[in-house]
């Protein structure tokens, strides 16, 4: 990839995660949903109904592909079979952009199907940056990496999470999918300042926001995506819009999924927060 002054793709506005519960409703006119984010792995299948639905959605909406299995931080080699399948899907769907997570998901050929934390160290920056460049070259697309919620930090870390994320984005020349809920969750769990996190992220790298709900479990907050967005996350989202401007925003809901109308109302709330801030800044 060649470096450019603003590496970001154009903003798509306000979108939702594509979930099977909403397939039928999404084929009705939905003027308040600007775009959809599809979980790549749900469509990395040979054929049948899932791919048919995705193609039909793509005819109506811009679609972004969001993966959970790239395992960009693992010390295992990159999985070329996975990347080949992902590229085939992308070439077929032509997503507005693609993303995955700044994490690892397994080693020694095992997959733990979770977004596991990395130590914030130079070795990991170099390792991940090299691999992001390989992936981008393979896919022929610049990708976005998402900050994950975490419940464990490592004593070996020498940097803050935001320093780690920013360094990888610059060195790999990739984009950032900034999950505002994940910042809130990790700030609580590890005792850092979420606003300091936002201040440490370079605006020209931020391609997308995620916002979502979470759950308290004992003293930790767990990123469950099964609740409406909480007030502290809305407040942090407003601060993110002030810092990063008009960034594509998407609400994630993976469990306890309500009717589409409820999520559209939540999306309207995001609009109501963002638009006055953007107007004032214009």
């Amino acid at each position: 990839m060649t470096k450019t002054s603003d590496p970001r793709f154009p903003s798509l506005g306000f979108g939702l995660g594509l979930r099977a519960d909403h397939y039928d409703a999404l084929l009705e006119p939905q003027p308040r949903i600007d775009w959809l984010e599809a979980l790549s792995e749900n469509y990395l299948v040979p054929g049948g109904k899932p791919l048919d639905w995705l193609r039909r959605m793509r005819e109506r909406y811009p679609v972004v592909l969001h993966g959970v299995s790239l395992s960009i931080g693992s010390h295992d080699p990159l999985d070329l079979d996975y990347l080949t399948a992902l590229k085939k899907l992308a070439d077929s769907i032509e997503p507005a952009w693609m993303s995955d997570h700044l994490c690892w998901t397994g080693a020694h050929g095992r997959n733990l199907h979770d977004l596991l934390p990395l130590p914030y160290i130079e070795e990991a920056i170099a390792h991940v940056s090299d691999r992001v460049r390989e992936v981008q070259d393979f896919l022929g697309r610049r990708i976005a990496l998402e900050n994950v919620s975490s419940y464990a930090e490592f004593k070996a870390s020498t940097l803050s999470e935001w320093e780690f994320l920013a360094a990888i984005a610059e060195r790999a020349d990739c984009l950032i999918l900034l999950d505002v809920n994940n910042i809130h969750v990790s700030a609580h769990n590890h005792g850092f300042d979420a606003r300091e996190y936002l201040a440490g992220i370079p605006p020209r790298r931020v391609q997308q926001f995620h916002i979502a709900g979470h759950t308290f479990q004992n003293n930790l907050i767990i990123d469950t995506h099964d609740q409406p967005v909480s007030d502290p996350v809305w407040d942090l989202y407003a601060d993110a819009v002030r810092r990063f401007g008009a960034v594509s925003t998407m609400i994630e809901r993976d469990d306890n999924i309500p009717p589409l109308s409820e999520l559209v109302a939540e999306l309207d709330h995001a609009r109501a927060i963002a638009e006055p801030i953007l107007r004032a800044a214009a």
Partner: protein
Amino acid sequence: MSVLAPLQDAFQRRILDGGVDMAILDGVVGNAIADAGERVGVYVYAYAARLVEALGNDYLTLRFAAGDETFEQLCRDYVMATPSIHRNVRWYGRGLAEFLRATAPWKHTPALAELAALDWAIGLSFDALDEEGIAEADIAAIPFERWGEMILRLPRHVQRERFAWNVGEVRHARDHAQPCPPLQRVQFPQTWIFSRKDLEVHYRALESDEAAALDAIAGGRPFEAMCAALCDWHAQEDVALRAAGLLKAWIGNGWIAAVASPD
């Protein structure tokens, strides 16, 4: 010296052994909110919970028949015995039927493995490669005297399983929101076929002669071998008519993806 690899190895060991290996805890920050064990414990718990949930999505009939509690226990046994080697969790349950067939106490209820095989067959048919079936005209284009040599290929959405238990009846009850019937052996084992038409999966039991004929086709044998298989059920003079009837029905169902003509 690498920090990353040993740290990931230790983290993974603790997740896969259900929270026994202690090595990773020395490397994790604990504080007043939660100690290192609780923090890593979130990941240990989530690992099994996520895989059990994925199996629950794939094994609807097995869950319906076993009940939630038994289903969760057999899934947890599978998870502990079977680390995932798949990037896509869609394929994680591939070995469940074999696991249930071979592992106590589940192997003592053989219907469980058959229920799992039924669910997996439905899943394979559901998202198999899209393949256009051939038309009758494709067969008609082959000279009749060469039919015996032609090789037919089944599409990937056509799956077959042989059941000695009433698992098809159980699936029917689940699909129609009826109570689960008692699990019992059927009088004669039957082959069931699962296939996709207009994106929907359909399934039914095959007659014995049709199952044998399909076995011949699935084995890559020529049409004449299929006719020979039908001789076990039909008089010689009736075989051609039955074979032609089956072929016509299969083409109508979209069960034939390709025909290799002798030339």
